[in-house]
């Protein structure tokens, strides 16, 4: 064992919170930029990027909810 179980759980908690926040910020910023870019509206590749960033936001939310799930036990 490298760490005690409690320490290891907190390492994972901090790691997952950091990952979830950075991921949400990245895809949130990307989504705002894409939605604001009216010149490419209707373009299939542009639509796919928007969909991808929405999925990214959903997955970032799930990763943050997983932390709550672990600590609150629901």
């Amino acid at each position: 064992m490298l760490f005690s179980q409690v320490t290891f759980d907190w390492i994972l908690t901090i790691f997952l919170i950091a990952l979830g926040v950075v991921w949400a910020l990245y895809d949130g910023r990307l989504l705002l930029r894409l939605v604001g870019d009216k010149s490419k509206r209707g373009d299939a590749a542009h639509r796919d990027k928007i969909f991808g960033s929405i999925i990214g936001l959903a997955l970032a939310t799930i990763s943050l909810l997983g932390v709550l799930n672990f600590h609150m036990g629901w």
Partner: protein
Amino acid sequence: MPAQESARYVNPANAITASRYLTLLPFFLWMQSGDIQLAWLMVCVSVLADVLDGPAARYFNCASGFGELFDAITDGICYGFYIAVAAYFGIVPVIPIVIFIALGVLNSVLRGIYTKRAGRATNFRSWAMERIAAYAALLAGAAVTGYSATFYAWGIPVIMGVVVLWDAKRMLFDPIPPAAVAEPSGQGQEESTVAV
């Protein structure tokens, strides 16, 4: 094989990608002996190598279609292995993992159909599926440690189901865009058919 041809396959970026396979055996042995933290460390090493191979390809100017394909296949094998082993040891529920793998296979079949429709080797770039690959890395880490493993495991079939439906519409019915150099994603910048 000429030197230039062999450099397409044997280069620093592909070496970094290939090194990820070295984590599989120690991962399994540590899982078997109950050294979960060391097994988790192997997942972290694999994720780190996955992050580094793209920049290495650009730095050493050795990006290729083969590298991109090799990277995608390695993602599937390594993350799939970690998650499957965690399911085998009962840390993560089996049903969502089976659904996840089945959807991955379906996605690969759809990519094959898309390639036939296009009539050329072409890269089907799916931004959403790239997010799913990143989430698979997260799930692998969580599955090994048991950290909200059930919660994370049930998240993936739901989201991936939506993504496969979206990509299926694009691959089967939407018009195929003209051949163009794809934007760099992971290792490599050339066109190729990549199954995430």
